[in-house]
């Protein structure tokens, strides 16, 4: 599989502030790749560097092997779907979609036909002559997509495109986006701070924080095998326990839990010493006997699930999620319970 975008040690400074520290990643051809992280993590800056709206302070950006880092945006065969869509308010929907083709010198008849086809693809043929202001948010979003896809870019960049939509529409658009990506075979680079969005659509995800890439992997990899505390904590819910590592080798480790029990678990690239252990709340159960004991403080009813807020003997809060079925035994607040870990529930982190 060839590499569509190769980001090599990209650095971006704003004055004395560094927005990107030596960021590297190889985004594959025909991949739905997501940059995920909290606001200010550098994901949008990286996207803008790829689009050409920001210059890089150091490093290279290769598009199918060609360095594009110094090209102006109009010479880069990548297109962007902007967060607020940025549809040209003085042009009709069709003219918006045809704009890129017009700039590339495509003749009137052909660009109208191709723009029309793009509108068909996003189910908006009937709105070709409307002005952007006459469309709903969801429709504007689809026009923005059609406009960015019309010139057949090698890579499509999407900057939090769903954040302005309401929940229902957002969920529908996720499916539509994924379908579009598979239909067109274009590489998508998708920026979001919403982990659910990232997990449901992406082939691979790069989790970013403070201008650095924390981990790159499939949804399953970053959820089930997080490298560090940031990733474990940012993706989903987790319990972080500080533990003593006895031995660590070959991706496995033996650690001492707060209660004194020893546990063998999967590990990131760790050395012996004190590290954090991540235990997912839904991979725990109440049993007659287990390596951890907790005092139940509160039971929160969540519909499909029950959340148990407990405290370990050393005072650390510890959360469980139990499926809400008829057979679930709900302990009383104040009672002490033994907690059993499923296989692979715990993972030792690098920090």
């Amino acid at each position, binding site marked *: 599989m060839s590499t569509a975008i190769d980001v090599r040690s990209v650095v971006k400074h704003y004055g004395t502030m560094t927005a990107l520290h030596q960021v590297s990643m190889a985004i594959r051809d025909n991949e739905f790749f997501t940059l995920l992280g909290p606001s200010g993590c550098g994901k949008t800056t990286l996207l803008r560097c790829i689009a*050409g*709206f920001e210059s890089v302070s150091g490093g290279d950006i290769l598009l199918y092997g060609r360095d594009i880092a110094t090209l102006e*945006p*109009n010479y880069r065969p990548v297109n*962007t779907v902007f967060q*607020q869509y940025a549809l040209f308010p003085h042009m009709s929907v069709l003219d918006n979609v045809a704009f890129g083709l017009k*700039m590339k010198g495509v003749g009137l008849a052909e660009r109208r036909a191709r723009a029309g086809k793009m509108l068909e693809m996003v189910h908006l043929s009937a709105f070709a002559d409307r002005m952007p*202001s006459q469309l709903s948010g969801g429709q504007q979003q689809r026009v923005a997509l059609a406009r960015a896809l019309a*010139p057949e870019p090698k890579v499509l960049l999407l900057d939090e495109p769903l954040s302005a939509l309401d929940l229902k529409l957002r969920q529908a658009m996720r499916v539509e986006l994924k379908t579009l990506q598979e239909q067109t075979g274009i590489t998508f680079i998708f920026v979001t701070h919403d982990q659910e969005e990232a997990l449901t659509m992406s082939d691979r995800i790069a989790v970013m924080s403070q201008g650095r890439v924390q981990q790159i992997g499939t949804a399953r990899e970053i959820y089930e095998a997080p490298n560090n505390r940031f990733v474990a904590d940012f993706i989903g819910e987790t319990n972080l326990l500080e533990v003593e590592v006895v031995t660590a080798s070959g991706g496995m480790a033996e650690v001492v839990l707060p209660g004194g029990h020893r546990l063998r678990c999967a590990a990131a690239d760790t050395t012996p010493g004190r590290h954090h252990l991540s235990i997912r709340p839904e991979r725990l159960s109440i049993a007659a006997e287990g390596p951890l004991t907790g005092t139940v403080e509160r039971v929160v009813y969540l519909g499909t699930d029950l959340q148990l807020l407990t405290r370990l003997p050393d005072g650390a809060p510890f959360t469980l999620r139990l499926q809400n079925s008829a057979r679930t035994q709900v302990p009383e607040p104040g009672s002490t319970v033994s907690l059993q870990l499923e296989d692979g529930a715990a993972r030792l982190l690098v920090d």
Partner: protein
Amino acid sequence: MKGVRHYPGFLILTLGCLLVLYAPLVVVTIYSFNDSSSITSWGGFSLRWYVDVLTGPESARFAAAAWNSITIAVLAATASTAIAVAAALAMIRSGRFRGKSATYALINLPLLVPEIVTAVATLIFFSVIGLTTGYLTILIAHVTFCIPFAYLPIAARLSGIEEVYEQAARDLYATRTQAFWLILLPLMMPGVVSGYLLAFIISLDDFIITNFVKGAGMETLPTAIFGSVKQGIKPNIMAISTVMLAVSVLFVSLSYLVNRIGQKTRT
């Protein structure tokens, strides 16, 4: 109790304010249609003073003055609008830079210096550099003091247009020049039109500065009217005044409408 926003008598004062502002204009407009040669008595409705302006003994003088006024206003408004668009792009789209606040002060300088001082200073300057006062000196002075009037609406509009539209255009293969002409300028247009119209009126209306730098034998409409009025208010002056009043109201209304339409297209 009508709430804390209401104060008794404020409505009356507002209406009084409008009465003071409009009464003289309304009265002159009415009397411009007076058939009588005397300005004191009403002799019935007639357009004779409008005809007099066009064909009467002073018509040649007024025609020449009107031609000067209009051509100067068109040229001054065009030049100052172009200058203001360039300045607004630099002030609003190029980040912070050294000398930005000084430049901002310079743009607003024509508004801060009393008109009579501008007039004196400009006259002295032209006399020192040896430029004969006349059409060209009026034009230069007008371009200069029209810049802030053109700048204000243009800058206001431009700062309301997000940079993302230009970025979207560049992303879709437009060059910098294409992005400006096809995207940014059309979006700025309401501000540009508004600024142009205001600059046009300001130039057309100016008396004090023009009076200083016009030189002998050169007249614009305001200086011609002033010359006539010095000998007493005649009905034909009221007819000219009414026409100029109508032009001003028309232009300001246009500028206002353009801005309102512009607000609707803002996304």
